[in-house]
């Protein structure tokens, strides 16, 4: 008691572990041939196996296993040569067999880690979150409690959809870290193409195990917040839960192990069930399925089909293109951005990588953001951007003319930078004679500025450059204008 009185609210350490259910991108279900497509009429995508008719049996979808292997390889985990499907037994109307086929003692993936980047700017830091395991299982159906006049409807379209349950170690120490981890995981599963990441449709669902403790002390009792389907809710739910636990403990209360639900309307969590009424799931190996055997040949085959992973790509961007750590991290935050950037660099040449990076992270990102578009749907293709970058790099146009060309491309008013430059006569003037003639005119017409410059006013020089650029309608090469003007003024 003395201790808790002596310590303030800031003297608590938050401990968070996440369980994420990622729906795998297979066309058919994990144990039946029914489609997994979202949004069909209720029960139209439920086969005899999915509705658990008497006598039916499960057959494992190889594609689901292949995706689990991809995940295991992507996080540097152990992919089990032999894992076992087990039955998790409980009664619920949307669980047709009265058990869920999952993995218990021997999961397909164990260990591994993901590096996350937390925070912005100077306070940003990197952290490695360890993973406990990832296992394959089937999803349940849905209970519909509206529109049935006091009864419940059951939709089994989702029953049997393949899930990879990804369990982290309790390595996160704040909601910001938890969200950063969830985002990194979200990006990764999309990067390796095993999950579409659609959180509205429930393809990527988070459960957060949250506890607080005195620094260095033993772990506190955790409560599990179920089914958080946006990063914002994840953050809000954890923040509320942490504050509630601290308040409870500082008021002399104790935390009971419980499963809680987050209500986005109130921003609060409320208890769904406590440990006392927790199910005894009576796990045992499913006798309908053989142990899942993954040999080295299969792993090698999957490894060969893996795309370059974000961490490796980030390192390569720094090494090969001389990008900063920040630029490389930003460009590899999603596979779509990385793919776009890579395509632009491939077309523009590695020497122009930095200019490409600036455009992708700068003007392009801003325009996409404003238009609420994904980079995959960008009106300016990577090839078009590369064409623009090349003309800037070879001094055909200046950076500011480049922005005009970019706008034209964005609006669909030209097929390529070259075409637009040609059609609008935007080509930079580099003809020394022409520039000299323009400068001579400007010097003659601006005797006052010339006077001031010669009297030591550097500002006057800039005014003269501006006049020359204006006379050339922006097309004169600024470097050449500078050089010739200085020579003529005898500076």
């Amino acid at each position, binding site marked *: 008691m003395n201790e808790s009185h002596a310590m303030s609210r800031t003297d608590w350490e938050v401990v968070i572990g996440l369980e994420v259910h990622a729906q795998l991108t297979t066309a058919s279900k994990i144990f039946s041939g029914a489609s997994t497509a979202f949004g069909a009429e209720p029960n139209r995508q439920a086969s*005899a196996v999915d*509705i*658990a*008719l*008497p*006598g*039916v*049996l*499960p*057959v*494992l979808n190889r594609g689901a296993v292949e995706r689990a292997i991809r995940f295991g390889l992507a996080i540097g985990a152990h992919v089990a040569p032999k894992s076992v499907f087990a*039955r998790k*037994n409980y*009664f619920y*109307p949307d669980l*047709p*067999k*009265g*058990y869920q086929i999952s993995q218990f003692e021997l999961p397909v993936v164990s260990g591994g880690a993901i590096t996350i980047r937390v925070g912005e700017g100077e306070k940003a830091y990197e952290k490695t979150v360890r993973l406990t395991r990832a296992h394959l299982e089937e999803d349940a159906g849905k209970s519909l409690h509206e529109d049935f006049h006091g009864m419940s409807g*059951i939709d089994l379209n989702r029953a049997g959809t393949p899930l990879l349950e990804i369990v982290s170690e309790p390595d996160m120490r704040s909601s910001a870290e938890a969200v950063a981890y969830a985002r990194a995981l979200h990006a990764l599963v999309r990067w390796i193409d095993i999950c579409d990441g659609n959180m509205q449709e429930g393809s990527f669902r988070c459960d957060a195990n949250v506890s607080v403790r005195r620094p260095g002390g033993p772990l506190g009792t955790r409560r599990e917040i179920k089914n958080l389907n946006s990063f914002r809710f994840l953050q809000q739910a954890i923040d509320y839960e942490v504050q509630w636990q601290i308040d409870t403990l500082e008021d002399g209360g104790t935390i009971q192990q419980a499963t809680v639900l987050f209500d986005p309307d109130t921003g609060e969590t409320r208890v769904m069930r406590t440990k006392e009424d927790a199910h*005894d799931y*009576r*796990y*045992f190996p499913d*006798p*309908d*399925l*053989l142990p899942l055997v993954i040999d080295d040949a299969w792993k090698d085959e999957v490894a060969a089909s893996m795309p370059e992973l974000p961490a490796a790509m980030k390192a390569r961007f720094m090494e090969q293109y001389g990008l900063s750590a920040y630029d490389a991290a930003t460009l590899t935050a999603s596979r779509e951005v990385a793919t776009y950037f890579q395509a632009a660099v491939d077309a523009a040449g590695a020497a122009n990588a930095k200019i490409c990076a600036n455009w992708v992270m700068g003007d392009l990102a801003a325009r996409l953001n404003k238009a609420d578009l994904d980079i995959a749907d960008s009106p300016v293709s990577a090839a078009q951007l590369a064409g623009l970058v090349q003309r800037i790099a070879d001094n055909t146009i200046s950076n500011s003319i480049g922005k005009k060309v970019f706008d034209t491309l964005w609006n669909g008013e030209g097929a390529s930078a070259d075409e637009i430059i040609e059609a609008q006569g935007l080509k930079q003037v580099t003809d020394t004679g022409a520039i000299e003639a323009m400068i001579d005119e400007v010097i003659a017409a601006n005797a006052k500025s010339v006077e001031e410059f010669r009297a030591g006013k550097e500002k006057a020089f800039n005014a003269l450059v501006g006049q020359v650029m204006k006379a050339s309608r922006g097309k004169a090469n600024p470097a050449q204008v500078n050089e010739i003007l200085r020579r003529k003024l005898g500076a």
Partner: protein
Amino acid sequence: MIHASIAELRAALDARSLSAVELATLFLDRIERLDGQINAFITVDRERALRDAEAADAAIAAGRAGPLTGIPLAHKDVFCTEGVLTTCASKMLANFVSPYDAHVVARLREAGTVMLGKTNMDEFAMGSSNENSHFGPTRNPWDVSRIPGGSSGGSAAAVAARLVPVATGTDTGGSVRQPASMTGVTGIKPTYGVCSRYGMIAYASSFDQAGVFGATAEDCALVLSAMAGFDERDSTSLDRPAEDYARDLRAAADPDRPLAGLRIGLPREFFGDGMADDVRAAVEAAIARYRELGATTVEVSLPNARLSIPAYYVLAPAEASSNLSRFDGVRYGHRAARYADLDDMYRKTRAEGFGAEVKRRILVGTYVLSHGYYDAYYLKAQKLRRLIADDFAAAFARCDVIAGPVSPTTAWKIGEKSDDPVQMYLSDIFTLAVNLAGLPGLSLPCGFGAGELPVGLQLIGNHFDEARLLNVAHRYQQVTDWHQRRPALAE
């Protein structure tokens, strides 16, 4: 024709001296006349049978007849049959019509057999006497005050009374061999995985295996050849080339010593004091006869076989408790008429829908899988299972087949053991080990005990030795006539 073998029926059908419709009608009429005394059938579908028989006649006329085209048969009511009631002898499924055929049913339909109906059984195949049926007990054609054995007692009794030439069954702990023994017919249970379990309503998935009853080993071989085979919908189905299980029966052999060189193992543990005197006399006489046919006998040991009762009655109920969870009143089958809420609906539905023995095994199975008991019961039993399988492997290093009794006694009186489930379980002592090890086993008539009740001899083969087992039974049946004896009721 009632007592004719499949080969004889084939010849008559092919010679057009008998039509498939006439043959089906003959047996359908017998069922109508005699089954009131036996109660071997739950469902008889005359209309459909005659329609199938007409199709068989057309196939025969067109020269497209296979070995089983036009042969009448019955299926145990554990097999799903499209468009025909599939009840598992339970109130739970008393109204259930399957929308699909079990793999075994489909294969036999494709082979041209004519299904006359569905046979009575112990509810969900749990029992050794056929008394646990929602549709009333089946009676033994040799003495209608006695049980026919179980759980495939309806199929065995139907073949024994010649209500049908052949019938399918399932054998989870002896459910083909024991009723075959008690009704004086031949029955084989192949190696686990030889017949697909798809559409066979699961009792204990890692034990369940389809089998067949006939008057002779030859008839069984013909039917087994058609029903066995790989099915990708059953992950435990074995992907092996198709076999002609009758091939050895047709092979030339020394007429005096057709089994010369055969080594028959006699497990010491099977010939102790656990066998009634009349059973012992018949079994030992049969073994003496085998020596005359050229076989040698060797004593082998199955030291852990005595543990098969506790091992089986832990593992099978464990699997059953989970397999039967799908019968919850939500999607099909029985649902209580009135209930207060969801839990009450589950409770009442299952309390009303299941019989006493099924409830007993669900309770036992739930218990042994519960938190804190799993290791002591389920895991321990799995270890025993391995030891028992190892015993057989060691024994088969010294012999080709193992012979012994099927059941410690001949058929008992209906009601005699109904109040004492443990006494009932103990009667499975000689059959359970075969299922624990996944081996093929066969029962063939080998004499009569007190009260003119049939006694069966059990032959156990190594994995995939079905053809050898059938041949060993066939050679005995060439020189004995036990299998030709008929109960008075059938004459």
